[in-house]
């Protein structure tokens, strides 16, 4: 029987310190089949309305462009607080997600609205920088007032099998975060296999992540239902083992309400209702919010909506 590289590498890891070397293998066909089942649930109107409002309330409204300006961020913050004032009873989004240099602007614009400011950090999106720079990047974001930090893992090191490096880095960033909650971006589109996604999830959770997040949004494929399912199952297993809840944030590629509702079904059926709030589940998205708003108005009025009547951001 041929010995695969992974079988050689794994026993060499310090298993006592970090149990991630024992990450289970993932059955790809099974995961894809299971994930597709969640898309077949029938959601009736009342549940759909509640679901849509929940989705909106779970969104991390995101702008991560090189061309971002203060003005753009302020406008996005206004959108976060007033998604669509024409209809009463619409919740705000969960958070605004920006680059560290925009945290102060966002924090000021959001005031006491209760909407969090999340900042990407650690040389987002590539993560190709020395650790001390990543730590400074993180501390800068936190000092500017970020409530949450979205870090990226070093995918290159991960692929090279240097799991301890990845573990230590996440732990170091977690320490730099202080009070801020840490979301760890695995960038699953660059990991390649579900086995690696599962292992990276386990490493992140053991190293102190508060959330695990699929993607930066800069790489295709970004969040998919199967990859999210693998991560949700990792969270579930971690919870059974340690009793500690970890949040989940799929990001990138979720732009339609219907898909978002499928994700909620998946979260409910894998993790249960405790995770069905924006404390433990988030969508990283920019265009999803408007689609959700359009569906909410469709349900209220019975008329199919046009993007022309909703603010861009």
């Amino acid at each position, binding site marked *: 029987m041929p010995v695969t590289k992974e079988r050689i590498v794994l026993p060499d890891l310090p298993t006592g310190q970090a149990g991630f070397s024992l990450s289970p293998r993932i059955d790809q066909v099974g995961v894809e089949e299971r994930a597709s089942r969640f898309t077949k649930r029938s959601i009736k109107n009342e549940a759909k309305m509640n679901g849509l409002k929940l989705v909106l309330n779970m969104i991390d409204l995101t702008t991560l462009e090189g061309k971002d300006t203060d003005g753009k961020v302020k406008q996005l913050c206004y959108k976060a607080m007033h998604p669509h004032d024409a209809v009463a009873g619409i919740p705000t989004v969960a958070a605004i997600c920006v680059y560290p240099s925009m945290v102060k602007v966002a924090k000021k614009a959001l005031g006491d609205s209760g909407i969090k400011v999340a900042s990407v950090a650690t040389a987002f999106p590539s993560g190709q920088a020395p650790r001390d720079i990543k730590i400074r990047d993180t501390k800068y974001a936190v000092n500017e007032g970020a409530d949450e930090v979205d870090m990226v893992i070093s995918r290159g090191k991960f692929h090279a099998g240097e799991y301890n490096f990845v573990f230590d880095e996440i732990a170091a960033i977690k320490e730099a975060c202080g009070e801020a909650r840490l979301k760890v971006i695995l960038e699953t589109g660059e990991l390649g296999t579900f086995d690696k996604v599962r292992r990276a999830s386990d490493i992140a959770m053991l190293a102190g992540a508060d959330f695990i997040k699929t993607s930066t949004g800069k790489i295709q494929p970004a969040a998919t239902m199967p990859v999210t399912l693998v991560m949700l199952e990792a969270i579930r297993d971690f919870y059974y083992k340690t009793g500690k809840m970890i949040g989940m944030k799929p990001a990138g590629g979720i732009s339609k309400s219907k898909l978002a509702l499928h994700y909620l079904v998946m979260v409910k059926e894998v993790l249960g209702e405790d995770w069905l709030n924006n404390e433990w589940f988030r969508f990283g998205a920019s265009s999803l919010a408007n689609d959700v708003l359009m569906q909410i108005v469709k349900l209220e009025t*019975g*008329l*199919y*909506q*046009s*993007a*022309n*009547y909703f603010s861009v951001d």
Partner: protein
Amino acid sequence: MEKTIKKSSLTISENGLEKKNASRRLEVLKTYKIYIGGQFPRTESGRYYIPTNAAGKKLANVCLSSRKDFRDAVVAARGAVSGWSGRAAFNRSQILYRMAEMLEGRKAQFIDELIQQDSTKAKAEKEVNLAIDRLIYYAGWCDKFQQLFSAVNPVASSHFNFSVPEPTGVVAVIAPQGDSLLGLVSVIAPVIAGGNTCVVLASETKPLCAVTFAEVLNSSDLPGGVVNILTGKPSELATWFVDHMDVNATIYCENNSDTQKMMREKSATNLKRIFFYDKINWYTDEGQSPYFIMDTQEIKTTWHPVENIAGAGGGY
């Protein structure tokens, strides 16, 4: 060679018995599907209906489209607006001409379908020929109507002020019931010649040509989503054609006064334009005119500042 079998020895029988019993070849019938975003899906609802001709012969199983098919078609049409309206007018002209070429090449099939649907041979030929000519007619107008309907306006300030027609966007069309090919082509052509995209509900009683016309469109370099063709019942879908907030104009080609009244009322929700082409004889010259193009255009006026050289004492 001893073992060579002569061709003639392969004939099966001498008394012809087998030949009589040999199974007759089954005709391979076409599935008449709908056309959305350059694809031919079946209706999402899974429903179908069977139109018959005057003699009571069943024509085909035809998709009975639902409002969700319409919604999907509008999404496809909206997605195609910027690409189609952004093309050079001359290129749109070329594509309309190409549609005529393709239609010419499949003339026989259309004549056959029209005859199946109660037309005579002579009348069917005339209808198909006219449909082809109509596409050529609007192909010619694609890059000319703008000059005709644009204006440079005299204004009192130092501005260059001009008005030009621009496509309104997504147009929803309920095609004529009677002239199932000529009517359909006569309504679609001016809409897309002007740079709009459309969702069309084909004739309920005579839907065959519309679906075959979709195949013509599909092989004519027309980008997917510019024309989307549904089959089904106007009585079921008409309200959605005027209700939808993302539809900019609706064209209704029947003379049902209740439906027309309903459309006038509902179109107010987003002030979409509605047009009733209910008294037009598509066989005559009144069936073709650049004014049909203008129905689905909006006039945009631009004020462009120009330096009043004399007033400013010379700026250069």
